[in-house]
């Protein structure tokens, strides 16, 4: 089956339509996704106008349920797309296992953005049991992340032959395994079967894998984006988004995160503490475009089975122009 047909037959659930959500929806609908449900119970806030381009330019809508306001604009991108919305709250569906299972099993792939940690882990426990791939993404101003639990995935990647042939049973990293290689001598190509295995997202929060994949120098100059993003999973989003977070509180929590992941606390710099204190939970359009672009591209590649997906944590640091992928 061709990639296009796979895209058409895949039913996707997107939870929370914020800045990243808007980008992901745009990219997937343009890319040929045919069936999409958006679950979002939020009411329109003033700051949503900074980066959510599907919103009609009508400030009088503030306080109304958000998704019904954007459905026409999204359908306008491609009138064949089968788009549905669900404005039920997360709790009303996911606090009951039967209800959650019934609902989630309608979908082939789930993308959740800007999720509080507890919800994210709860959602992931369902998707694991139902064997549904899950993407989670979020952003803090100039920074962002994508976490993936695609459970297990096999792809066949065609590459030009290098100097040394790739061999079956080679580990690319701890979660990516080359299980099989066939050689096309005539075209000088290798068809490489890669098996990606994932772990539950809850385990990423206590992973000590980083020191195993970075050398001492890389570890020393690791961007503070990673520990600070993980710190913010345990910090409540302020009621007023313009409020800065307390720098000392951030520093303290971030040090604990570093210890938990076995990385040097010295990577936490004042500069980055200031960025994160001011930018935590804020949405910024060009950064949302990056994250939404990568996420949608990875979903399309995942469905195509011709590329090995991201495994398992993408960090976006636009201050340093870095987008490392860590295996947590």
């Amino acid at each position, binding site marked *: 089956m*061709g990639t*296009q*047909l796979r895209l058409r037959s895949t039913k996707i659930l997107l939870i929370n339509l914020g800045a990243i959500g808007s*980008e992901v929806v*745009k*990219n997937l609908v*343009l*890319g*040929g996704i045919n069936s999409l449900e958006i679950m979002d119970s939020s009411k329109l806030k003033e700051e949503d*106008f*900074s*980066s959510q*381009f*599907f*919103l*009609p*330019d009508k400030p009088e809508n503030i306080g109304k349920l958000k998704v019904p306001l954007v459905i026409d604009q999204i359908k*306008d*991108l491609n*009138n064949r797309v089968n788009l549905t919305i669900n404005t039920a709250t997360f709790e009303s569906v996911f606090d009951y296992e039967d209800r959650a299972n019934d609902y989630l099993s309608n979908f082939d792939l789930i993308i959740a953005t800007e999720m509080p940690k507890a919800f994210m882990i709860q959602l992931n426990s369902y998707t694991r049991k139902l064997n549904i791939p899950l993407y989670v993404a979020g952003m803090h*101003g*100039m920074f962002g992340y994508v976490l993936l639990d695609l459970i297990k995935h096999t792809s066949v990647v*065609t590459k030009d032959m290098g100097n040394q042939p790739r061999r079956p049973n080679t580990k*690319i*990293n701890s979660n*990516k395994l080359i299980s099989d290689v066939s050689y096309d001598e*005539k*075209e000088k190509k290798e068809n490489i079967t890669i098996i990606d295995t994932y772990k539950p997202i809850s385990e990423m929060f206590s992973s000590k894998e980083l020191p195993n*994949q970075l050398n001492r120098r890389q570890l020393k*100059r690791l*961007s503070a984006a990673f520990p600070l993003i993980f710190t913010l999973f345990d910090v409540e989003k302020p009621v007023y988004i313009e409020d800065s977070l307390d720098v000392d509180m951030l520093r303290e929590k971030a040090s604990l995160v570093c210890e938990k992941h076995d990385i040097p606390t010295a990577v936490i710099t004042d500069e980055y503490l200031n*960025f994160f204190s*001011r*930018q935590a939970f804020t949405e*910024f*359009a*060009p*950064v*949302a*475009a*990056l994250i*939404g*672009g*990568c996420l*949608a*591209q990875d979903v*399309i590649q995942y469905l195509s089975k011709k*590329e*090995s997906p*991201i*495994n398992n944590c*993408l960090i976006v640091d*636009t*201050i*340093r*122009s*870095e*987008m*490392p*992928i860590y295996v947590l």
Partner: protein
Amino acid sequence: MVGAGGIGCELLKNLVLSHVGEIHIVDLDSITLSNLNRQFLFRQKDIDKSKSLTVAEAVEAFNYLNVKLVPHHGNIMDSDLFPVSWWSEFSYVFNALDNLEARRYVNQICLYLKKPLMESGTTGYDGQVQPIYPYVSECFDCQPKATPKSFPVCTIRSTPSQPVHCITWAKEFLFAQIFDETSTNDQSEADRANQRRKLESETEDKAEIENMLRENDEFNELRNIVKSKTSTKDSNFFEVLVNKIFSTDIERLLRIDSLWKSRRKPTPLRIESYTKALKELSAERSAKDIVVDETRVWSVLENLFVLQAASSALHERLASSESFISFDKDDDDTLNFVVASANIRAFIFGIELKSKFDIKQIAGNIIPAIATTNAIIAGFSCLAYLNYFNQITSSDSFHKAFSSSSTIFTSIRPNKYITSAALIEPSKKCPSCSHARGILRFSPEDLNNMTLEGLIQLIRDHYGFDDDISVILGKSKLIYDYDLEDNLQKKLTEINGFKAGETLLIQDESDALENLELYIDTNTSGKTLFPTLKLKEKQMDNDGENKDEDMPEQGEVISLDDDEVVELDEPVETRKRGKESLDGSSKKAKL
């Protein structure tokens, strides 16, 4: 923002949401159906409208911050529409272009005016942004660029002369028209008008245009045959197809005399003469093996056999499960169809036939644009620009920005999604930014009355050239050197092509001074102004290759503004050429 296509739509959205003050958008294209699946600001109803006007209107829907938008429908290289006075108004230029010629042109203008330029481009999953700070970082021409291959529609549709023309026809036109989703059955009037205009921009031959439009209608008929659910066994699809594309269409082309005045005429295929042999071949058991013989060039008969088999396989697939089929070089039915039809067309036009293996390579090289890559690249483009604007409090903003900007490539690996590299200093061998340039602004009176001899004398006086110089107008027109004195007494306006928007290249034939390039402009409000420049002494090549990688010369004069000279006396860091910036420690951008 030059270009309102795939990257342009995404970039404009980012800029508008980032609260830029005023954005001018230039594009000369109109919207076509094939744009809709990756240019999200365009809708079906916009087909045939101007891209620049449409994007400006479309982003108004989310112009929450009231950014001022000014669209221009026109060719950016048109110096009447876009003179230097227009260019000088901008503080930053974005290239979101798809062709080399316009990219080069904008790069040149930005060099003349010392405008910061963001260059961006994507091919498939690969994309790149490169900030350019004229004379401080590499410009677009510092690294030689491979010319991408693209062919005029008319070459593909009417007058092929190389195998690749036939392959492009078979894949992008024939196959797409009949089997793929991108072409619609119910062509709107706007579609037709748009197509007509597109063709008219490439050829003035009315008969040829009418012919191509008629061919299109007939493809819709073929498409209807394959779409109808009649049993493929009863279908005469193959016969109708072959008769149309290899006989009727070719005969019709032959009737357009203007096409064949200086070209070899094609010979329509006489299908009848193959019918019997084709039947016999089909009956042979070994015929099935032809398609796996990928390195041998098949005979015309074999190609017909393969085409027959592929047509019926594709027809069968459409009749049973699939609603459309896209070309995929790894989908053997689609590849066989393209190989066989390209080869038979090549035979008709007296062009060399190719093996399946070769055609697979060539057809596979035509890389589609991908919406998500455009989105990612446009995100970086906008971010890098914001970074620049956080630096411009400094008087030496280009140097500041130079050390805090990166060239960024998407390159997806298991451990990273992008690669960023420090900017590189200009190449001393760059054909564009390694020599002096400036804008020469004539008063209307001088432009009308001055002789070439008068101008050359003024140039010598201003820049210290001795006698032995040559002057080239535009790309390659020599108007003066020591043994071409015919033009000396002519007035400037009497020299063909001498006008505002053109360039003059002055070369010192005695090799003492560097070359000087002058952009001709008019100064309506006063007298003729020569740019104030101090020309460097020419460096001899025998100083050795390494010189290029060395520290730049201190105090070198590079400026090009009309009336100022900037001396670079600040030491400039040497940067590693082409090395990845492993640590981003040089980046100190602030939001």
